[in-house]
């Protein structure tokens, strides 16, 4: 029993970044095609990371690298909790811890650009956090459990009861995936008014860690989407995977067709969307007492 658990955990830790990296490669190809380019090979993200790991070790001070490793640890822990079917709220809290460590790394870099990036990151967290918590609350209301393993073994998929919550979640997913228009703190695009945001002062191995952390985060974000669709019926899992892919494809399109917005709009729109969808949807669910 314990052995199976350990094997599952190891598989999650190893496979998640591989899938996440492939997704990132897929993302870059699609983005290139959208722009009428050929784009890099599918494995490009892995080449980047493998290159970065071998680079020289340079630093600006003694402390700032620590936060990247701390962040990675907690993000991996989140992935393990979520993919093992653990408690969703716990996973969200650990995820927040990982994300906030990353922001602290920005502060500790002391660079003006990374500090501005870190502040924007905190603002983004404030913008998306309510919706993440409400998503968990909504899923709990329909499945009577915070455990993801219970959520995905219901007879009816959660999306049926929580369509508006799902829309709200997809809205804030853009923050989590660091895509335009909500890539305020750092982005893969050539918005250069804050250089590379939090990651400005990181290079070599730490930058590779940041990339890998982001791969984990993408999968964690899509796991939320997955939970909306999966049921006790095995075939539903195929649909859930398809739904994840569709949502991700949609995010890529949004990413390529919008520009970075000001923080006011990011914060206000996220909070308003969250408020409207959660009040409407949860009220209805609670009225019918599922």
């Amino acid at each position, binding site marked *: 029993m314990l052995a199976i658990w350990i094997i599952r955990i190891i598989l999650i830790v190893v496979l998640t970044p591989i899938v996440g990296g492939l997704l990132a490669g897929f993302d870059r190809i699609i983005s290139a095609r959208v722009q009428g380019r050929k784009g890099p090979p599918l494995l490009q993200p892995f080449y980047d990371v493998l290159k970065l790991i071998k680079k*020289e*070790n*340079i*630093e*600006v*001070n*003694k*402390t700032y*690298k*620590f936060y990247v*490793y*701390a962040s990675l*640890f*907690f993000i991996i*822990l989140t992935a393990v*909790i979520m993919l093992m079917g*653990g408690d969703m*709220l*716990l996973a969200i*809290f*650990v995820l*927040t*811890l990982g994300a*906030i460590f990353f922001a*602290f790394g*920005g*502060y*500790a870099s*002391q*660079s*003006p*650009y990374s*500090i*501005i990036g*870190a*502040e924007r990151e*905190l*603002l983004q*967290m*404030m*913008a998306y*956090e*309510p919706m993440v*918590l*409400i998503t968990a*609350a909504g899923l*709990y209301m329909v499945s009577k459990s*915070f455990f993801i393993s219970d959520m995905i073994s219901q007879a009816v998929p959660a999306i049926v009861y929580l369509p508006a919550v799902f829309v709200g979640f997809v809205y804030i997913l853009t923050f989590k995936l660091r895509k335009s228009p909500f890539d305020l703190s750092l982005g893969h695009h050539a918005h250069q008014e804050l*250089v590379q945001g939090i990651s*400005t*002062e990181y290079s070599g191995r730490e930058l590779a860690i940041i990339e890998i952390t982001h791969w984990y985060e993408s999968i964690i974000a899509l796991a939320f989407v997955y939970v909306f669709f999966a049921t006790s019926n095995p075939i539903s899992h195929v649909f859930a995977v398809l739904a994840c892919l569709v949502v991700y494809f949609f995010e890529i399109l949004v990413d390529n067709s919008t520009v970075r917005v000001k923080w006011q709009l990011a914060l206000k729109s996220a*909070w308003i969307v*969250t*408020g409207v969808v*959660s*009040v409407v949807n*949860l*009220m209805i669910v*609670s009225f019918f*007492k599922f």
Partner: protein
Amino acid sequence: MNLIAVLILFPLVVSIVTFLVRKENIRSAVVRIGAVGTLGLTVYTALQYFNDGLRISLGETEMIEIFILVVEVGLAAYIIRLGIQTKKYLISVFSLFQTALILWFEFTQKHGIEVETSIVFDKLSGVMVLIVGVIGSLICLYAVGYMKGYHEHHTEVKDRQSFFLGVLFLFLSAMFGLVLSNNLMWLYFCWEITTFCSFLLIGYTKTPEARNNSLLALIINVGGGVAFAIAIVMIGMNFETLELSTLIAMKPEALVLIPVFLLCVAALTKSAQLPFSAWLLGAMVAPTPSSALLHSATMVKAGVYLIIRLAPLLGETSVGRIITLVGSITFLACSLLAIAQRDAKKVLAYSTIANLGLIVMCASIGTQEAIWAAILLVIFHAVSKSLLFLSVGSIEHQLGNRNIENMNILMHVSRKLSIYLTIGIAGMFLAPFGMLISKWVAMKSFIDSNNVIIVIILAYGSAATLFYWGKWIGTLLSNGVGKTDGHHGVFSLDEEIPIFLQAAIVVISCLAFPLISKVAIVPYLSEAFGGQAMAPIGLGNQLIMVIMMAVLILMPLGYIPLSKNSKARVTPIYMAGENAGDNEHFIAATGVKRKSELSNWYLEVYLGGKRFTFWSNMTAITLLAIGVLLVIWGWAL
């Protein structure tokens, strides 16, 4: 019995002695002995009675009653005179009214009402006694060193340390009385004494601002006292009892709900909920130990303590719903307001009000899970907040101000203090620290009680909380170089020992939370609600939390030696131009060296002005007005 009496009277004796001794060395010794003594007594008492609890029925309480009456009348006389002197006639009116009411009740109506059990020491009182005793005595210990430094910096303030320290101990005594009394009259008496202590301490510096704020605190809390007095009279006349435990055991009928509503209003004033919160913000002018002790860790908890006690009567009732909403508005509004504050103590004050709001929400929901969360919140908030206040107090001595923006240089000034402060802040909002565990359970219990609006408000409030604490820690970690305002005090052992112990308690209490839950809270819930209560968080999750805590402790310890030995090439930070070499300045156009200045986000455009405060208060007032209507309606039907 004797032990309880000693517990209540010992701080009183220390208080009188401290007040009388004018020689600094002797006084310091007395305070230290008093603090350690209180600590020891608390722990001993808790060990004695914690498991089995204690219910004391005093046969002959005539003497105590007379003593209470005499003190109450004396206090009322003083307050009425003060109100007339300062032209705040409202205070006089409130005080006159409540005292007259109590005296009338005492002499004409009270015959035949027997109080069977006057003192109850159950698990909840035990937890409160431990908080008051342990944290209180640590703060008193801290006050010795702090006040010395305070008067070195603030030469304009008259040195009345004996008075200050004396009042702190008087307060401890009253607080013990408050949490142990089952007799509502005694509870009310202690309640008033704590109000008065708070008034004295806020006015300590005697500046016009301090004076005004202390009077504001007095008006609001005496107003709460009026509600309390009316509630007592109604309970006494309608149900022929003055026991809290008897009241709680009643059915939530309309006639019961009126006094319960009044008691809740009194609790809301004490816990500085909207619309009564202004006094707590004003109270921040007081020297830091009193802010830590009265205005965050213990006295303001008296309000929520009362609501937790009354929880079985709240729950699904209209009163319960209204109180929950008031608490939730307070939580959301104050969490947002804290974002706009630069003054560290103001941030702490707003966060205190917000968290008290959260506790009020949990307590008034009234389900087992919610009460579990409420009690844990009381514990963890007291522990973390007092650590934060004490650290900020010492930081103010080190930096010369308490503006959060200036704390980026704290790592250079005092590394220890910034670590303590970081632990305190992390304790307030990060997993796996206690506040977050409680919030987690709060969330679960809110959904279980089918309160959608409250769930959503909690989600928003938590996000705001994350933002203002996050940017504060970030500022600390940004590790800038700069100058202090000049007077760079010494971080004395008197200050450091209590701060260190508090920090240790924060960490240990998080590691030990499954134990706290098992030993104290679950048994209390089983007792209060009947049946076998369960900890709302499963064992597996508790384990994960403990592992996370361990990782958070071990990881930095493991990383420090690695980073010290790293042979990485150190390069200047990137400034998108030429870095002048010190990582602080860059070479601007025409070759001028300019400093890169950064400031945090305060969102003052949205949250800074008076408008936001005004509308939050209006919402809370409207809710309370609806509450009054509902109660009257329920009674009339």
